[in-house]
Each structure stands twice: as structure tokens, then as C-alpha cells.
């Protein structure tokens, strides 16, 4: 996968341009991390506040490398059978039922239990073979021929046991299955792990990864993002909008609006045919930006001041 895309990832600068062509505006740090991940073959641990494009980064990376994106959402109680592999119990059961008669034929004439068992052994582990294996995301990623981008989303939500289980995969790109032996990656996948920091991750996991922190973008980059995502929006409104969001982020709110909210808001304003920001429009669309009633109540009386500050800036 790396060799195939060599010219697309031969420097951080190229990666940045390629991402831009795909509509993902990123900082130098992000481009560098993807560059290092591809060349050092190390997973990236992406942290940052919600809505700054952590998951999007994985999607665009898979697009850039034209490799399939395999996504695994983590949650409490996630275990091997859901992340790695499972036996197709139903199929096993069905086959044993169907083959009952055949088994009878095989067994016919066998004297005593010992002989029957030794005859059965001649057939090998039919029911625990690849045919009956249901690969889950991690195994899929290891087995995909042309390489893949594996996104392990919100790793902080999974249990610590699962985190420990991931270590083998992250450092050696291999995984042990008791019945089949060790599965090695055919082509090493690019792994991205995202975390919202709901709990501290283990040092062992962090050690194996490149660490990338995506903060809220600077105003210039956010403007570029908006113009890439919502190109129809006029320049003046875009500047106002980004400046206003910047002011909001300086307030102490429960949840400050992230980039995804900015984009949603820009789309909404476009749909409503708003020419320039004013008090009324902001008030009616504020619920797109703020997700807590407390926050909305805190911001509403401040709208005029914020708007003034925003227009002055832009």
C-alpha cells in the first residue's frame, strides 16, 4: 500500500496538498503525523476535543491511499469475539446436523470407542477451520491483501483489558488465535486510534503510538475549512461566522462549538439565505452550535457583545 502510493506520500507537504484536494484542510502537524505513520509503520493516537476531525482524518487517509477503511467503534465491554474473530456457531451446528448420516457411514464398522475416535481424528479440525471463522474488524485489517486503514475509534471507552490485548497488534501487526496460530498482517495496515480523554490511556499503549493532538484550528485554517466544505457561502459571512465562533470558544461553556458545529452552522445559514449575521439569526440558530440549555442561556444575553467583537475582528 505504501509502495503503491509512494508519490502521494513522499513528503508532508505533498500529503497536505493531497488532503486539501480531497477537501480536508489540515495543519502541518497532522500531515507530518500521517507521513511518519506511513513510513515508520507506527499507529497514530489522535487526541483532541470532540468534533475537530479525528475520525475524518482516518476517512481521508483511506481515501488518499485508496485503501478500504475498517472501523471499529470501542465501547465498554468490547471483547475479542467482537473485535477479532468469532466462530460461526450456527453454521457449525447446521453442518454437524447435516453430516450426521455421513458420520454414521464413517463410523460404521469401527470397533470400540478408541477406533471411532482415531477415525474422527483423521478428518482434522474441520469445524475449526477458516470456513467457520467470522473475521471481525481487527482480523479483517490484518488479512486485507492490499493493506487497509484501521480506525479504532474512541479507544478510551474500551476496557483496560482490551487495551492490553491491542498491544500485540499495534507493535507487531500480528495476533494470536489459539485454534489457528498466529496471524501476521499480509500488508501492514495504517492504524489510527482516537481518544476523547475520558480516561487516561496506559503508558504501554501510548509508547507504541505516535501522538497527535488536534486542537481547535486557527481562524485562518477554520476559514479555509469552511470554504472547502461550504464553498457557496460568501466571504463576509464566512469571516463573521468564524470570528463569532472564536469568541464563543473563549467563553467558559460546558461544551464549546467544534469545527463540525461550525460547518453545520454555515450550512444552515446558507440554507436560510442569510446575508450577514445579526442578533435574530444567531438567536434562532444558536441551538445548532450549543448542545446544552445552560450554555444557550449563558450565551443569549451576550450575543450583542460577541457579535460586536466578531465584526470588529473580521
Amino acid at each position, binding site marked *: 500500500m505504501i509502495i503503491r502510493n509512494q508519490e502521494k506520500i513522499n513528503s508532508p507537504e505533498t500529503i497536505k496538498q493531497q488532503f486539501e484536494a480531497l477537501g480536508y484542510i489540515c495543519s*502541518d502537524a497532522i500531515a507530518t503525523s500521517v507521513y511518519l505513520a506511513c*513510513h*515508520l509503520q507506527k499507529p497514530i493516537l489522535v487526541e483532541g476535543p470532540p468534533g475537530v476531525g479525528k475520525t475524518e482524518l482516518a476517512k481521508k487517509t483511506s481515501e488518499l491511499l485508496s485503501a478500504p477503511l475498517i472501523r471499529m467503534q470501542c465501547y465498554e465491554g468490547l471483547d475479542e469475539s467482537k473485535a477479532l474473530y468469532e466462530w460461526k456457531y450456527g453454521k*457449525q451446528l447446521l453442518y454437524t446436523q447435516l453430516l450426521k448420516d455421513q458420520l454414521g457411514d464413517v463410523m460404521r464398522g469401527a470397533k470400540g470407542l478408541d477406533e471411532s475416535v482415531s477415525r474422527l481424528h483423521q478428518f482434522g479440525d474441520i469445524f475449526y477451520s477458516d470456513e467457520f471463522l467470522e473475521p471481525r474488524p481487527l482480523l479483517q485489517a490484518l488479512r486485507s491483501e492490499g493493506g487497509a486503514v484501521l480506525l479504532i475509534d474512541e479507544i478510551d471507552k474500551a476496557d*483496560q483489558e482490551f487495551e492490553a490485548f491491542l498491544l500485540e497488534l499495534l507493535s507487531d501487526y500480528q495476533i494470536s488465535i489459539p485454534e489457528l496460530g498466529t496471524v501476521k498482517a499480509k500488508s501492514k495496515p495504517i492504524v489510527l486510534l482516537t481518544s476523547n480523554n475520558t480516561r487516561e490511556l496506559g*503508558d504501554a499503549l501510548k509508547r507504541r503510538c505516535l*501522538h497527535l493532538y488536534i486542537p481547535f484550528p486557527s481562524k485562518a485554517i477554520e476559514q479555509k475549512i469552511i470554504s472547502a466544505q461550504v464553498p457557496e457561502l460568501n466571504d463576509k459571512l464566512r469571516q463573521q461566522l468564524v470570528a463569532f465562533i472564536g469568541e464563543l470558544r473563549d467563553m467558559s461553556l460546558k461544551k464549546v462549538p467544534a469545527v463540525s458545529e461550525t460547518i453545520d452552522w454555515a450550512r444552515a445559514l446558507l440554507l436560510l439565505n442569510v446575508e450577514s449575521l445579526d442578533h435574530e439569526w444567531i438567536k434562532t440558530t444558536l441551538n445548532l452550535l450549543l448542545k446544552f440549555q445552560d450554555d444557550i442561556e449563558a450565551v443569549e444575553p451576550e450575543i450583542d457583545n460577541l457579535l460586536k467583537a466578531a465584526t470588529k475582528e473580521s
Partner: protein
Amino acid sequence: MQKVLGDFIHALRHAGLPISSAETLDALRAAQLVGIDNAPLLKHSLGMTLTKCLQHRLTYDQVFDQYFNSYDQFKEASSSEETIKALEEKRQTSNNIDEELINAYGTSFQSPLAQQLMDNDMSSVQVMITSAATASGAREIAFVTQIPMVTYRIMQTLGNGELQQELAVLASSDENSAEVQLLRQRRLLLQQQVRDYVEQQYLIFNQNEPNKLRESNLQKINLTSVDHRNYKLMGELVRKAAKQLASMHSRRRRITKRGLLDVRRTIAANAAYDGFLFHTKWKSTRVDRPKVMVICDVSGSVSEVARFLMLFLYCLQDVLPKVRSFVFSSNMAEVTELFEQRGMDQALAEVMLKWANLPSDYGKALADFTSIALDDIDNRTTVIMLGDARNNNEDGNVSVWEEIYRRSQRVLWLNPEGEFSWDSADSIMSEYAPYCTHVETCNSLRDLNRVLGSVLKHSN
């Protein structure tokens, strides 16, 4: 490059970043990949491999700027062999020029340092400074006050003594005053340069040494005598210790008894497969997090210890989610909500303002506790009392304490006073002591760490 990076990582470790050797190798590979010409790119790349959280990243940025700024100045001085060889050649040629120059002046300087200074060959001087600095131990400086001494030592190693002598001789004869002036100026310049270098080395490698010393002292000293200006540092230390404890005890939530089949759950799980037992379910025991109730006397001197005990407990929230806290001096009040709503510091300040510094009355406080929370104590509750049991000769209401002891799983009494002063004057420690699982002296961060560690351990 290896040496430069190795030193850099050494500097980072001094600044308090935990960098493993595996990460060092990664950093080397990353640096090889991106090269060292593009500074911002190198900064990002090394940052990603060496730091693993935001706080560390900020420290890293600072150290990077400091280190590589000084490195840039001394770039040529980095001891890769080719540069040295190149410098040697350069020196040869410049010596020739120098000879012409000296001829022009009509005199030649005897001391080697004077010759070098008149050469004005800055890069070779820098090489000399670097090697002299290593020899004089510039990296081992622990205190700011050592800087002049090390500077002096480096100057001596460079040959300052001879230079001074020669200057004195030349000055006495006075015939070459313009030249002597020039040499003097150069010498001062060199001294400044050496001093700058030493300061930089101090900043990079040893700035944090005194802090480490202070930290280890603060661990041991009596909490009641912690100075106000050390509160912030103490707070950080408490948080660090709490994090360590939390990570030690957060691992296991459930102990699976391997080999003990849970028949009921196995049959239920396999009902869908016609009774064939594909999934086996094993018995497991859930590890309970202890319910903790902490009662703090905040009167007088105990209040200082109470501050740190509460801070510690709230830093343990990951592993001790069910902490309820009560404070009293005469009246008791529950402050659990206060801590949830306000930040730690603000809540502490409020507690101290409202309840602290009143004469303590354990009898009244325990009576209040009966009405607030006695019924919530069950056999999984650990009750921690922090107090000196100095009751101003009032009735101690011991029966309530006995009731608490009977109902709860464990009762710990932490007394900030040493054992020798228990029961002296108005202390009624011996009345409460029979109804405690454990009575301990607790007045330093180490004690706190040990006590809370045992609370967590007992729960498993």
C-alpha cells in the same frame, strides 16, 4: 546526529518527561526520515514520537526551542568528525592569514589563546568551548550560583591564565596599545560567550534539579507546617501520587475464577444452539470499589492536613467514585456536592472559610452525623476520620462512634499528632480508639499515600 539527539533526550528527561529507550529509537528513525534541515518538521516529528500527552508536549516545545537554539549557535561545534576535520583545515589556512596579519603588526603573540582570538576564528573557538565545558562539568551544575565558577574553570582550561600574563606584559611595555585593546576586547567577548554557554547548559540540563530536591523534601515534611507558597507544588505532588495509586488499583474490576463453570449462565447462553454448549461461561467475582466516607475535623491545625486528605481523595475519583465527605468543627455538614459543583481549590477555600477555625466539639458533630448519614453506612463502607480528638473537655458521644464501627466494614482514624501526645490535655483518643479498625498517625504526604493505598488494597 545520534549524540545531539541523545543529549536532547537527556535534557527532556531532566525537564521531567518520561522517555523510554524505545521512544528514543523511534525518534531517531523519525529524525533520519525527515532530516534535520527543516526545523518545524523536525519539531513535529520528534514531538509525536517523544511526548504522549498535551502537558508533556508543552514542556517539550519549550525544551526544543531552548536546546536547538543553542545547538544552532554551536552547530559547527557538534563533534562529528568531518566538521572537526574541516575546522582543522580551516584553522591551518587561517593560521597562514594570521601570520600575515601578525607580520603586519610586527609582533607575535605567545599564548595559544591569544593567537586564536586574533585569528577571529569563531567556530574553532566554539569547538574549544564545548570540549572545555564538558571537561569542567558544565552539565552537572545544580545551582545558579555555580555558573561563575564553572565559567572561570572553562576560561582557565582555554588558557586564560597565559593570555592574562601576556596581556600584562604587553600592556606594561605599552607600545602596541591598539593591539592590546583589541585583544582585551576579544577576551571579554570570549568570556561573555563562555558564560552564555554555561547558562544555557544549566537551563537545559539542570534547571529542575533543585525542584526535585524540594519535592522529595516536601514528601516528608509535616503537613501542618507546609508553607502557603508551597501549596501549589504540594497540590501537584498530591495529584501525582494519586495518579500513581489510581493506576495501580484500577486494573482489575472483575476476577474470573477460571475453571469454575457457571452452569446457569452457560445453559442460558447456549439455549439458541439447541442446547449444544458452544459458549462456556465462567464464574467471576466483581471487585467492589469501596464506598468511602471521610469525616474531617477542620478546626485549628488539623485543617491543613484535612485540605490535603480531601485533595488526595478527590484525585482518586477514578478508582474511588463513591466518596462522601463531611467536615466539622462543632457542627457537621456534608460537602460532597460542594466539591462536585466547584473546582477543588474553590471548594476547599469555601470549606475553610465556613467551617474551619472554630473550637471543635466531637460530641455535637457525631450527633449531627447520626442524622445526616448514619443510615447510609453499610458493610461495604470504609469510614475515615481525620482528627486530633481534642474535644475541649466536652462529652465525646462515643456511643455514636461505636455504632459507626459496628455498621461499617472498616473504620480508620487518622491523627495528625504523634502518638506521644494522644490523651494529653483535652485529647480523648483512647475513648474512640477501641472502636477503630486502625488508628494511625498521619501528617505527611507519605503517610497519606500509605493509608489510602491500604484502603484501595483492602477493597480487592
